[in-house]
């Protein structure tokens, strides 16, 4: 697995997988989880990122999601776009055209 970059003060969101379904989810502003990155709460500095991750980890302990982590995003447009191609694939689904849509 490609190493997650060390995040500094850049736009970032928290992602995880839903425990029951395994679906990719993003932490929202109201501390719930959404399958759409458009709903993600975007923060832009290390402290806010850590605070967001703390909320997510508490929810992982409550068995709502699995293994939350922070990812950098380009927030200059909507929806925010992950920087790493791994996260782009997680957000958009497999890139192989022959597969059915979700």
């Amino acid at each position: 697995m490609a190493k997650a970059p060390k995040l500094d003060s850049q736009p970032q969101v928290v992602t995880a997988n839903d425990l029951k379904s395994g679906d990719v989810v993003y932490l929202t502003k109201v501390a719930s989880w959404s399958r759409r990155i458009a709903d993600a709460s975007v923060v832009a500095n290390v402290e806010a990122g850590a605070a967001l991750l703390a909320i997510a980890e508490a929810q992982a302990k409550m068995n709502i999601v699995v293994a939350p982590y922070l990812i950098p995003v380009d927030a200059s447009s909507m929806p925010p776009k992950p920087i790493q191609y791994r996260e782009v694939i997680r957000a958009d689904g497999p890139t192989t055209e022959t597969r059915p849509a979700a």
Partner: protein
Amino acid sequence: MYQYDQIDQTLVDERVAQFRDQVARRLSGEISEDEFKPLRLQNGLYLQLHAYMLRIAIPYGTLSARQLRGLAQIGCKYDRGWGHFTTRQNLQYNWIRLEDTADALADLAKIQMHAIQTSGNCIRNTTTDQFAGAAYDEIEDPRVWCEIIRQWSTFHPEFSFLPRKFKIAVTGSPNDRAAVRVHDIGLRMHKNATGETGFEVIVGGGLGRTPFIGKTIRDFLPRQDLLSYLEAILRVYNQFGRRDNIYKARIKILVHEIGIDTMREKVEEEFTATKDGALKLPQEAIDQIAAQFAPPAFEKLGGVAAEYANAFRTDFEFGLWARRNTFKHKQPGYSIVTISLKKEGEAPGDAKAEQMTAVADLAERYSFGEIRVTHEQNLVLPHVKQADLPALFRALKAYDLATPNVGLASDIIACPGLDYCALANARSIPVAQQIALRFKNWERAHDIGELKIKISGCINACGHHHVGHIGILGVDKAGEEFYQITLGGSADDQAAIGDLIGPSLNVRDTVEAIDTLVEAYLRLRKSSDERFLDTYRRVGLAPFKEAVYAVA
């Protein structure tokens, strides 16, 4: 084919009940993810990029029509109507919900299938020749031994927490189609001077980060001693295999570090102490298992069937397909048919539920209800009457299953890669798709002839890139997908690890480079009989390297 008796069925049912309880404990929060993860992995359940993935064991790649039909139904009920056949002769569902897993496993148990030991540091599903029980060149049906190993290794109390995963492959033919030299243990059946059948035992082969060709630890092992000898190897490995570094934990590193001679001494010492114990196989027990693999009721056929000869003459497409996708059967008048899951532009190894159901129906009509899965991610109908080949071809064509490319450049092995896999560094499937489309022209593809291209999305080498005539390995280079190309690998009886050709390339240049390599081969080959691999072995890396990097 092997049928579960009441003992097998009870054990699989009990396993489902056990896992149902474990999932319930996880969903209720009684156990944490850390505690649950090893339990779900022992039942083949991974958490991948987009969803849970469930890996189903297909013991030694053998399926009945009923089982394949069941897999299609389970794929529709719990997945998105697909299944993915893997390089380990297994099947993966890519879109499984944790909540549904126990029900899916219960449905599998009804067709005598399971996901036991398809992950984790234990003895995995034993693999073998996809033509077992059918091939003309076979000494003995290796599936008998695979089944004996399956039973011995299932829920093994001593070997469920090994330093690392453990894979065993068996070939019953001198022409190795099971890649036995690149497994933790490879077993090659052969006859000794007195005509007795036994095993050459090969240990410490493997791909991954540090590829090794296995070494022979014993030239000839009598059949009745198979399990004692396997247990001796596993016991030495369990105690002395490295556990300090996950990348050095496979048995290949132990064999490499202590040397094959020391390894042999330790194993033989253990074997000497146990060989006449409870694991010794009585002939009657071997016979009982072997009876379950008795050949089907073949008809006695002579000469070439008229339908077959006619179709060859009159139907060009059929001839192309029959030449490429059939293999010589031991029974006169029968052929082995490989069904390509590699239509150019499709994801290698993927099958739609309708396709699986169609193959199940055709197996019932034409192949005694038997299907095999190949480690090259294709399906096989092992026992088809030659007279039926034209009808089978037409039926397969209707389901897009008659691509005449077995062993050709577009018959690419590819792991799921970063489109699905949480471990991957780069995508494999789109690269395979783009390369395959370059070889869609049948004239060119057949002119090039046998060419095995294998693609892995990370160093774990699920796509067997090290042993591809052309191997492609995805890497992450400063946040971009890049690919390393190796040449000259081979997984057959003259197994070899490929040589790195040069600096890695991006996706576009990689696809271009494969084309360039093939063009270079066509220029360099002595005749159209000389395969890509043979030319490479004759001329070496330099002219190929020059061709790729002079252009790039």
